């Protein structure tokens, strides 16, 4: 058997999620694991050669030598943050120029929303895209948030993986803090332009302006320009970010327009506006003046963590012994439970977690997940759902439909992580396409998920729900068809995405079950509405049938006896009308008037609901990219 040289090439061809690249920044190695893929044990991580290390095995080969250790080392040294970024940009949402544009806006808007909420301000976010050339655009996102103090600007915008969200267990939009700085890096790499930030942290003081680039070798911000007293219009405080990038601007399913509309629906307390490169000028006005309650931070539940995280926690804990570590660093671990876990792992309570981390972590991990030990479900008060009422209000404000319903399920738990499902339906209306499949809006922690619908637990749950029970047509293994929008929101302290690009929710049975329950409840309400609507159509059809047969009947009776045919026809038509009175009821009844009221309210508030049709058609080109 020929043993292949363990060269850099081979290593690099491996999927990045499984084994970190040798030259990635230290922070990236510590990245929390994706859904089900556990992080390797520490030896494996440490075993990877650091730049400049003497290669351990590459020259010990039986086959032909392809490169010397020195060659390899030379090559390895030159890989930098920017190279890592460009190589892995598909993981971060920058795989196509079109997606890059959307991701940039998404990261900026997420940041703005978070900043506003943390400061207790109702968000007002203006998004502008200026066309520089066919393939180059300048994205400007301005918010009315608290602004950023001078010395933080660089860290937020000029350093990858900086942020407070990285490891805490608290419901938040982003989870990895790779967002806005990555967008800046992408812009810099594709256009050479810096990220421009204008921020006004103090109402009484002038705005501060700076231009930043990321030093891709050191992962440090570089200030290119700094000045005070910059021009600022609008809110008393706030931040404006400008990024120029190579991109593609297109309408359709994955359009900026569509993303902003969905963001507005999931954030009823926010007002968003959009000025596009083709003269687009629209605004989605907030339908609620209530800020969502701030989510509480919780300690991780022992059943919710992966082995890699457990090792990290053991290494970095302040507890001096294992008993204390389990009690202090996790939720729902009482002294009795901690004792049970340690007994199961055959580890003394007095052992030092730091020392155990390398050797016995796996035993602890197995003990935690042993069926013999009962651990209470995690607290669920840390989740902040949008709320059924607000979702419905939001749907009414942003979508012109005939029927609306929305609800929140009670919180539930998957693998130790609390989560909550919300669902809503908007049906009918002049803008909806009755012949195509329903339009699905997926959200995770209020962020719209626009890509990879096929692999997502939300899409799967919608397909698995039998919509024919609710008077919608549906082919086997497919989404239902009809003029409807189906919305599903997953709120959780830790959303299990299928990949780093955070585009699809992983298929946990607990999550799918909850989504289905929510959809079924909405479906029943829709079914009741549709059966009323169907009744009117049915009555009209009945009347038509009677009217058709009356002529035949009168002719036949006329041939059978001497009768007055005209009178008989008149009498029968009269009875037919009285028997099908429901056919004359204006369609929709109660819901119809509600829809009209909502449409009127929408116009008054100045909202311009985005057009719905057209988006469902075509635009499958970058599906599942």
């Amino acid at each position: 058997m020929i043993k292949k040289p363990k060269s850099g090439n081979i290593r690099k061809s491996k999927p990045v999620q499984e084994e970190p690249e040798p030259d990635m920044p230290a922070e990236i190695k510590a990245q929390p694991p994706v859904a089900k893929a556990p992080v390797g044990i520490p030896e494996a991580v440490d075993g990877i050669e650091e730049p400049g290390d003497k290669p351990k095995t590459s020259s010990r080969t039986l086959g032909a030598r392809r490169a010397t250790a020195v060659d390899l080392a030379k090559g390895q040294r030159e890989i930098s943050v920017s190279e890592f970024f460009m190589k892995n940009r598909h993981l971060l949402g920058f795989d196509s120029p079109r997606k890059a544009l959307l991701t940039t806006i998404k990261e900026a808007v997420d940041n703005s929303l978070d900043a506003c909420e943390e400061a207790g301000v109702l968000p007002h976010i203006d998004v502008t895209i200026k066309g520089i050339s066919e393939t180059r655009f300048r994205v400007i996102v301005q918010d009315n948030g608290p602004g950023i103090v001078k010395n933080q600007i660089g860290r937020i915008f000029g350093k990858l993986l900086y942020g407070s969200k990285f490891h805490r267990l608290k419901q938040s939009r982003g989870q990895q803090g790779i967002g806005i700085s990555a967008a800046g890096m992408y812009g810099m790499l594709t256009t050479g332009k810096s990220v421009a930030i204008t921020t006004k942290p103090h109402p009484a003081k002038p705005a501060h302006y700076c231009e930043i680039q990321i030093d891709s070798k050191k992962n440090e911000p570089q200030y290119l320009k700094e000045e005070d007293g910059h021009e600022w219009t609008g809110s008393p405080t706030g931040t404006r970010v400008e990024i120029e990038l190579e991109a593609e601007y297109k309408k359709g399913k994955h359009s900026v327009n569509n993303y902003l509309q969905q963001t507005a629906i999931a954030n009823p307390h926010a007002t968003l506006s959009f000025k596009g490169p083709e003269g687009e000028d629209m605004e989605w006005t907030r339908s609620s003046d209530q800020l969502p309650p701030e989510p509480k931070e919780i300690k991780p539940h022992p059943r919710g963590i992966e082995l890699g995280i457990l090792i990290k926690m053991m290494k970095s804990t302040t507890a001096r012994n294992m008993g204390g570590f389990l009690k202090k660093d996790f939720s729902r671990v009482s002294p009795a439970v901690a004792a049970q876990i340690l007994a199961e792992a055959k580890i003394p309570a007095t052992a030092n977690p730091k020392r155990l981390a390398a050797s016995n972590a796996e035993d602890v991990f197995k003990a935690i997940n042993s069926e013999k030990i009962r651990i209470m479900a995690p607290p669920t008060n840390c989740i902040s759902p949008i709320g059924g009422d607000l979702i419905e209000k939001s749907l009414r404000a942003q979508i012109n439909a005939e029927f609306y319903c929305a609800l929140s399920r009670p919180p539930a738990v998957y693998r130790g992580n609390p989560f909550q499902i919300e669902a809503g339906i908007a049906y009918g209306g002049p803008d909806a396409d009755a012949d195509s499949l329903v339009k699905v809006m997926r959200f995770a922690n209020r962020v719209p998920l626009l890509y990879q619908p096929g692999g997502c637990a939300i899409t799967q749950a919608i397909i698995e729900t039998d919509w024919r029970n609710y008077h919608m047509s549906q082919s086997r293994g497919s989404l239902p068809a009809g003029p409807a929008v189906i919305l599903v929101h997953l709120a959780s302290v830790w959303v299990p995405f299928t990949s780093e690009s955070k585009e699809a929710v992983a298929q946990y049975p607990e999550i799918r079950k909850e989504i289905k329950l929510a959809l079924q409840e909405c479906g029943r309400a829709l079914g009741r509405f549709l059966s009323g609507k169907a009744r009117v159509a049915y009555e009209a059809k009945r009347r038509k049938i009677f009217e058709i047969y009356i002529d035949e009947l009168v002719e036949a009776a006329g041939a059978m006896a001497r009768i007055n045919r005209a009178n008989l026809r008149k009498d029968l038509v009269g009875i037919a009308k009285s028997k099908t009175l429901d056919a004359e009821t204006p369609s929709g009844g109660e819901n119809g008037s509600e829809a009209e009221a909502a449409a009127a309210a929408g116009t008054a508030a100045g909202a311009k609901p985005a057009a719905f049709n057209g988006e469902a058609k075509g635009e499958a080109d970058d599906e599942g990219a």
Partner: protein
Amino acid sequence: MTKALKKLRSMKDPADKIRAMADALVRFAEKGENPYLDIPSRTLSNVTFSDRDSIIKLGDETQRRFFFNIGQAKKFMQTYLVASGCSELLKVRKTTSIRDLYYMTKHTIKDAREETFNDQKESDPIIEDLEVALGSLREELNLFASNRGAMVGNMTIWDSGDMINLRKQGSGGWSVPSIVEENVVRFKSCEAKFILLVEKDAVWRRLNEDKFWKKHNCMLVHGQGMAPRGVRRLLYRMVNELKLPLFVFVDNDPWGFYIYSVIKQGSINLAFESSRMAVPSARFLGLSSYDKGKFKLPDNVSISLNKEDRDRAKQILEYPWFQKEEWQKEIKKMLKEGIKLELEALSAKGISFVSEEYLPYKIKNKLWLN
């Protein structure tokens, strides 16, 4: 049975009945009521077996057919269409086949992409509905079914003015018309001592070719499967007017048993006609479930019962007119063996086994069921 229905059925002239039907519709319409027709149900639940007469009779259950009912509107309209067709026939004093009537009443409905009748299967049951609703047989409404069935034997008859010698009918026999009333068919001279009704045309041909009727001095009739109304009515008249015993020779399967039972007691569907068609004295000559063993037929001539056969056999087992012990044994034997036999299976023992051995043996030894 409702008063109106009784009144309608009590009228003598079918033409009056049809006029009354039209008038009823006008009265309903004038009063602003939902027009309806009462039609005696032609279902198993509305059929009673009369032990005394040993025939199936129609009960008093009726179905009310409304016009302003989405499931019934079309049928209601169709019933009037068929009635108007019959009214036309009565007026011009002509008879026609039920297939002709189907074409007379079939057309595209004005302003709709819909036919009054899609096929004859739709119009035939409407004719039966009208027959029971009016209490008039289709023959009285100047309708007849297509001819089916044939007869040969030692007899001369009069058919619509022609004398027919049934001894000289070649290989095909005299085709039995669908209307065989006195005005169409009269019996002249008859030497035959019994009637043999054969289910199948092919076996009937074998017996005719072998001149079975000559050797055994009988009438040989077939109905090509389930005997049509003309054949049944003719058998009834021959049995009652000429006092001839009737033997039935059918396949050994649930369908064959049912054919025998329809001849003997009448059918569920046409229960209203039993009294003028059923022959309670009819005897079942074969094939019996015991014949395979008795005549040592080879195994390969039998066919396994399928699910449908089994279900049908179990149904028949429950019919009140199959409650005689010998019949229960017969049906249970078939279910136990799990096989059925066609008449042609007898040919395995020789091409003329049926005419030269089987039938003579059965008749001579009185191996029949009642």
